[in-house]
């Protein structure tokens, strides 16, 4: 199995910081969306809509670096970046980072770190949604929502994760493999 070397570690960190910087512009969007949805009691929906963006570093790192743990580390580092950039959620960001990273890592684990294609990304999007949603059931008390509302939150989260962690990630890796900087994907 491939081991972590200095270059990979630096790459995954720089990648996480790049994502953090790119997403920084999303901050205000999130706040505005939350404020708009809050009066109707729909604030969590803002989370769900944008969640795919926050969890993108995981599948992208997993796809590019292809070492076990890359997705988890990419997402965890993303959280560290957010924390030191002045994000307020602190300790819970770190835990969420690990949870989200592990969620997308599962997708790569299930495909044995051998296949790097559509299937991997779809599975990864699914595992990310399931794992992070389970976490939200406890952490944000989602467990006490009515079932119908819960189903809607889950669906929106999956769509978001699928669009960003799946479709967009696939488009990015297509460009990378055409430029011969990552191995060709079948």
């Amino acid at each position: 199995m491939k081991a972590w070397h200095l270059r990979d570690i630096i790459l995954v960190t720089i990648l996480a910081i790049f994502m953090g910087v790119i997403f920084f512009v999303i901050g205000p969007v999130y706040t505005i969306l939350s404020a708009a949805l809050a009066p109707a009691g729909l604030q969590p929906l803002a989370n769900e809509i944008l969640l795919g963006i926050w969890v993108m570093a995981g599948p992208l790192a997993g796809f590019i670096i292809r070492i076990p743990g890359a997705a988890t580390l990419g997402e965890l580092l993303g959280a560290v970046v957010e924390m030191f950039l002045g994000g307020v959620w602190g300790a819970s960001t770190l835990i969420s980072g690990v949870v989200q990273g592990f969620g997308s890592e599962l997708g790569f684990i299930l495909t044995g770190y051998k296949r790097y294609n559509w299937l991997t990304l779809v599975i990864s999007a699914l595992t990310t949604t399931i794992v992070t949603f389970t976490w939200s059931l406890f952490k944000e008390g989602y467990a006490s929502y009515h079932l119908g509302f819960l189903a809607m939150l889950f669906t929106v989260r999956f769509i978001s994760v699928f669009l960003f962690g799946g479709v967009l990630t696939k488009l990015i890796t297509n460009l990378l493999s055409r430029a011969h900087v990552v191995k060709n994907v079948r």
Partner: protein
Amino acid sequence: MNPSLKLAWVVLLALELSFTQVWTVNVVLIVICLALMIWRRVAIKRLLWLTGVPLFFASALVWSLTLQGSASHHFLIVIFTRMFVYVYLGGLFTQTTDPLTLTRSLEQNAHLPAKFAYGFLAAFNLMPKIKAEVASIKAAALMRGQVLHVWSPQLYFKAILTAMHWSDQLSLAMVSHGFVEGAPRTHAAVIPLRHRDWWLTGGSLVLIQVGLFIGLP
């Protein structure tokens, strides 16, 4: 306090409190964190920010749970205070910990391999260059008539190419500066890990367990 232990303390607590439902313990922790932050002279502006943000999100979440769910009053108070615990724990940690000391401590006390510790650090020190690069990529696209959004693959594609180039360059430079993966190193600054740190961490964790046990409904 030793940064590695402090990190472990903060993460453990945040994790545990995500699954427990004792709001009195949450409130006690909020008060303690706030007191410690004031004692460590965290700027008042920062404190207000650390209070305002969770106030909005916790209220919105509680309101949503009321409208769309069937949570008890007790549970709503737990959720409301929990959001503050997260933010204050995080605030206490980031406002009183310097990233370099944390990295050194992780290397020396937590025995994180040096390649991780210094690999992270080298990349983090590129932060200003990374910000400038994102602006550059977007500007280059605008000059060609293209607007790059958060959902544009090309934005990430260009960023990743740069990340690859920089990580190649930085890792070579570190090797040239004598860094060898897995080789022993000396330490210019020794981060102490005192008995006191262990007692404080352990003792406070035990106290919180007791509090959680007593507070069980």
